[in-house]
């Protein structure tokens, strides 16, 4: 009953968004304000209805209503409450639904929180958002209906994917999808600006805020996904250049490039068209990522044809690209270059362009690497694999290029090749960087890297990161000095700068963390009860395998007493877990973290008879914590920058022009 109601609500959403698109387009053509308001109400109604439908689905999840196919597939009677909540997005239908729900909500927020300066383009924004939404609702109803009934109803479900029963997997998809769907707003604004034929007064301010919001969510989402892989999959890494990961990384790169393009547009009025293109492509690639991971095209070209969703996605993506390309082709000439004479030279704006170039190059490489197996199979018929070694050939160089570009770009100023105090700052930074690098090298135990090439890359990279950090901080110091350390003034006027400073420092910390990870030490050891093993300064004493019940899982824990230099520092319990709904044994990783490295232990095998013998895989993973800290710093930086009231405000341009 409730399931049918949910289905009809989604159907109503489809009808309502279709009406919304038509009315918004007509409102734009006829310049009919009340018709536009009606289209906005249509989206609001869709939002309310899809939220209600989602609540119904949740309600049925908690009532264990197995007459719904999706609930039967993704949950079971033994599932703990919290995972019953997150089972909602643990498979295709639900995650599509979540996508749609979030897009609906952010679209509604965007339409209601519009700036008066953008009034003229709002009908186009409404039409763009609802066009995408309409298609999502169509897909939801036709190919991935979460409310599909199952007859007869079963007494128990098949259970949630055991790998997803992890707190990080509970928050990772909504965060990432928030990023994906929030990117729809800048894209809608760019299409609207093109249709309208001009960039309106408040365009930059609004677009900038939404892009920053999406960027924060994407950054957090990607890192949360990495953290999940780190603690759940048990291979001691967090990033594998897997197609699914790549497809979340590409929109991030576009989004970051877009932010830098927006800065140039704000300051000089240049790169307007590039901004429009990037805003659209960022959203396009977040859709594209969903397509390549959902359609089955990644595993093989042949599985693509079997799924009805694949061709649907492809048609929509191609259609979206075509429509926007046509709009761009006709309307781009009306997006005019800046009025004032602002030439390009060796200055900050050029550094920003180079940054964008590096980011987009990395995006292109990741895209090529991800799609190459499909292309190769389609053209030559030969199946190939593109995995980490390919990406690792190129990515570090671009990363180091970015590190240098960040340092130089932040010290430069707009419209001048002079770098205030530049050479002095760089020299001081180099002097400061030496002890900083030394601290990183000693703390991270970098010198024990075996390969000379890797060691060299690590030393150079860490020095550059330290130098760049020092340069950025020096620049911040200079700016504070210019304000005579009036912090109140600084924080009231320079939140965008300060947020950017934090975000860049965060990226540098992350790159230092990636560099430290070049050296992974590992050992596989089989221990009998009471035996002790020495592992790079740690002594681990194996006791025995214990069987423990935790929620719905049975854990086989191998208790290890850890001591360092003879002094006991605690116990860790790597385990394998068995869930009632699956025959596989999952890893339960045991971690003992210090600031500099993680002791990462997995239980790979154990004696089933008496539990007195077990094989452990021991890893020392240096500087992993840097990456988690970095993500936090970056997100905080992005959020601070969001609250700057002056960036993107046209009124300031007017003042400058008057001078």
């Amino acid at each position, binding site marked *: 009953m409730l399931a049918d109601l949910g289905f009809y609500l989604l159907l109503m959403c489809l009808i309502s968004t279709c009406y919304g698109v038509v009315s918004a387009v007509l409102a734009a053509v006829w310049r009919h304000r009340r018709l536009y308001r009606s289209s906005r109400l249509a989206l609001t109604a869709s939002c309310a209805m899809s939220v209600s439908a989602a609540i119904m689905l949740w309600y049925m999840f908690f009532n264990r209503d197995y007459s719904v196919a999706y609930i039967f597939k993704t949950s079971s009677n033994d599932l703990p409450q919290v995972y019953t909540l997150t089972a909602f997005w643990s498979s295709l239908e639900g995650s599509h639904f979540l996508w749609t729900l979030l897009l609906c909500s952010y679209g509604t927020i965007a339409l209601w929180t519009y700036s008066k300066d953008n009034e003229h383009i709002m009908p186009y924004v409404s039409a763009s958002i609802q066009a995408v939404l309409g298609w999502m609702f169509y897909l939801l109803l036709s190919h991935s209906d979460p409310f*599909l009934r199952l007859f007869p109803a079963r007494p128990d479900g098949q259970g949630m994917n055991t790998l997803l029963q992890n707190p990080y997997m509970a928050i990772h998809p909504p965060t990432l999808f928030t990023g994906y769907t929030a990117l729809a707003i800048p894209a809608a604004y760019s299409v609207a600006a093109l249709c309208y034929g001009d960039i309106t007064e408040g365009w930059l301010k609004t677009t900038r805020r939404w892009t920053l919001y999406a960027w924060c969510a994407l950054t957090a989402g990607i890192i949360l996904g990495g953290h999940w892989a780190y603690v759940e999959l048990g291979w001691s890494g967090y990033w*594998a250049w897997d197609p699914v990961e790549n497809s979340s990384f590409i929109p991030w790169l576009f989004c970051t490039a877009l932010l830098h393009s927006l800065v140039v547009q704000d300051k000089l009025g240049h790169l307007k068209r590039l901004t429009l293109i990037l805003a659209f492509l960022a959203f396009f690639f977040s859709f594209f990522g969903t397509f390549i*991971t959902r359609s089955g095209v990644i595993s093989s070209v042949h599985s693509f044809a079997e799924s009805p969703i694949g061709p649907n996605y492809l048609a929509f993506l191609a259609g979206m690209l075509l429509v926007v390309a046509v709009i761009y082709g006709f309307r781009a000439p009306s997006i005019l270059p800046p009025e004032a004479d602002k030439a390009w030279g060796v200055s900050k704006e050029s550094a920003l362009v180079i940054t964008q170039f590096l980011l987009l190059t990395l995006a292109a490489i990741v895209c090529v690497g991800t799609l190459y197996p499909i292309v190769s199979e389609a053209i030559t018929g030969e199946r190939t*694999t593109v995995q980490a070694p390919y990406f690792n050939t190129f990515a570090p160089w671009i990363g180091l290029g970015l590190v240098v570009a960040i340092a130089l770009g932040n010290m430069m100023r707009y419209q001048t090749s002079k770098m205030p105090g530049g050479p002095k700052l760089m020299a001081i930074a180099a002097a400061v960087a030496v002890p900083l690098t030394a601290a990183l090298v000693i703390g991270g135990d970098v010198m024990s890297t075996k390969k000379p090439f890797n060691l060299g890359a690590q030393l150079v990279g860490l020095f550059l990161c330290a130098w760049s950090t020092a340069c950025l901080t020096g620049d911040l110091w200079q700016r504070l000095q210019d304000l005579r350390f009036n912090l109140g003034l600084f924080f009231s006027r320079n939140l965008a700068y300060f947020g950017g400073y934090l975000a860049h420092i965060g990226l540098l910390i992350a790159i230092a963390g990636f560099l430290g990870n070049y050296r992974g030490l590992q050992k596989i050891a089989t221990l009998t009860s009471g035996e002790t093993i020495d592992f790079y300064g740690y002594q681990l004493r194996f006791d025995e395998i214990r069987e423990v019940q935790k929620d719905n899982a049975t854990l086989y824990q191998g208790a290890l007493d850890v001591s360092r230099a003879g002094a006991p520092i605690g116990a860790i319990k790597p385990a394998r877990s068995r869930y009632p709904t699956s025959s*596989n044994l999952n890893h339960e990783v045991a971690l003992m973290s210090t600031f500099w490295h993680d002791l990462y232990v997995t239980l790979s095998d154990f004696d089933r008879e008496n539990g007195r013998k077990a094989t452990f895989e021991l890893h020392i993973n240096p500087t992993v914590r840097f990456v988690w800290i970095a993500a936090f710093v970056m997100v905080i930086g992005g959020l601070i920058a969001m609250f700057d009231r002056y960036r993107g405000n046209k009124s300031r341009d007017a003042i400058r022009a008057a001078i």
Partner: protein
Amino acid sequence: MMTIQFSRILKIFSLILVNTAVATTLIAGESGPVDEDALKKAWPSDGPVGELFHEVAGSLRCPTCTGLSVLESDARFSQQIKQIVLEQVEAGKNREEILQHFTERYGPWILRSPPPRGFNVLAWLMPLTILLLGPPAVWFFVWRKRRVMNTLGVRSADDIIKEMHGRLKEMQT
């Protein structure tokens, strides 16, 4: 009708399971059923044998997982491949010979990055091309346009005044 739709749904699900597209960052490192009889072998990690073993095993893909090498995976298939790699390393074969052995058996698919031969050269050249041709392209499209037009598509007033001054000077001499 319900059942037809349901079978379609099941099909989609099996696809999802294969492609691990459950949520957007799912790397299904196959945990696999644990071998009942023998405890997992301790693979060498030190010495020349260990280093070569690491290098070779690190450049072969785990056939049943996404994104992982056989070195990082403890799926049964990966264990077997590692065993063969270890045997060949101990038999004194070098890196190329062992990789050749696996390419002959499984095709280039087993290598984690496509060997730069034939069509695959494209995959390797593309990034280099972008990196080499990109800066000139940026120069051509962005920086070259130093002469800025104003809104009416006319060169800016400053430029025109400068040119007029030049002409005046020419006329005076």
